[in-house]
């Protein structure tokens, strides 16, 4: 099988030979945080309104002990009133697909804790579309979860923030705290 270098156009048997860095310019890293100690929440503030969309990429684990994976949370512009949001979740746990809804901002059932398999951190990818548009309410969609070799969840969800304000701050939290090694990265997409 030949692999083509995206820089030189040459072919080789190795996937990366000849491929030095390429900068497409449509996806930019804005800020990130990798925790060196247990932390209750992570906030990205002063988010510029110069992008079309935002993406958040999370690899995390919480200190909250529960029988199964539990929730993380996504709040905009410091609005943690909880009742202002609306979410819908569809998830699979290896046996029974389930859908839930709530007036909340939950990344439901995505986050492992000390009761779950050690050394497993979740993955969550959140897309926030038209985040700076002041003519519409804001919607985030996400794909997240973790497999634990015998348990675990995969979750598809959407969170509505019924507010037309441009999003300039995002706070991520969970039940308990995020533990050391959890990482959070914010990107702007044009």
């Amino acid at each position, binding site marked *: 099988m030949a692999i083509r270098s995206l820089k030189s156009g040459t072919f080789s048997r190795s996937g990366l030979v000849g491929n030095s860095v390429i900068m497409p310019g449509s996806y930019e890293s804005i800020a990130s945080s990798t925790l060196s100690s247990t932390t209750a929440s992570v906030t990205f503030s002063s988010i510029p309104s110069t992008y079309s969309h935002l993406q958040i990429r999370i690899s995390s684990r919480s200190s909250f002990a529960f029988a199964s994976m539990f929730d993380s949370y996504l709040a905009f512009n410091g609005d943690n009133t909880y009742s202002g949001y609306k979410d819908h979740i569809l998830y699979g746990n290896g046996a029974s697909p389930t859908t839930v809804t709530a007036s909340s901002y939950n990344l439901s059932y995505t986050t492992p804790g000390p009761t779950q398999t050690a050394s497993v951190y979740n993955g969550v990818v959140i897309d926030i579309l038209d985040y700076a548009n002041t003519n519409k309410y804001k919607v985030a969609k996400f*794909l997240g979860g973790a497999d634990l070799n015998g348990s675990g969840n995969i979750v598809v969800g959407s969170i509505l923030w019924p507010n037309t304000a441009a999003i300039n701050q995002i706070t991520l939290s969970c039940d308990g705290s995020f533990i050391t090694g959890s990482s959070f990265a914010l990107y702007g997409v044009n």
Partner: protein
Amino acid sequence: MPRTYEPLATTTLTSVTQNLTFSSIPATYTDLVLVLSLRASTTASDAYFRYNNDSATNYSDTVLRGNGTTVSSVRDSNALGMDIGVTAVSTDISPFQTPTIINIMNYANTTTFKTALIRTSNSTAMVSAIAGLWRSTVAINTINIIHRGTGWDIGSTATLYGILKA
């Protein structure tokens, strides 16, 4: 602002290939994204992906899927690879291929197991979302996308991207 989402390598198959491999992946990014457009060369759609040529039962996955009639969730434990969903097969309308996006989180860290998020959209059969796990703390430097039958058909494509955080 640092720009990142860098295409690392791509391939378009010119012959039927059972094991589509990206190797020598540098450890300099935060996440990897693998974009696949696949069609099997036979009626067998069964496929999985592995890392670092590890063929032991160190993988597992949790699947959520819907086929237009039924929604279901299944699981593989202590498996030989991670499920990528149902891909297009030789009897599907042509030249239809199945798009799959695999997010491989924190792939180069050496302290945790490796989590992947997979989305496959097979318009002729089912859509699926999958969480995959490799129980290894070794940095990922090779990805194998393996068809468990004859192989991936000519014209199937795969592109690997690296994402770097600030």
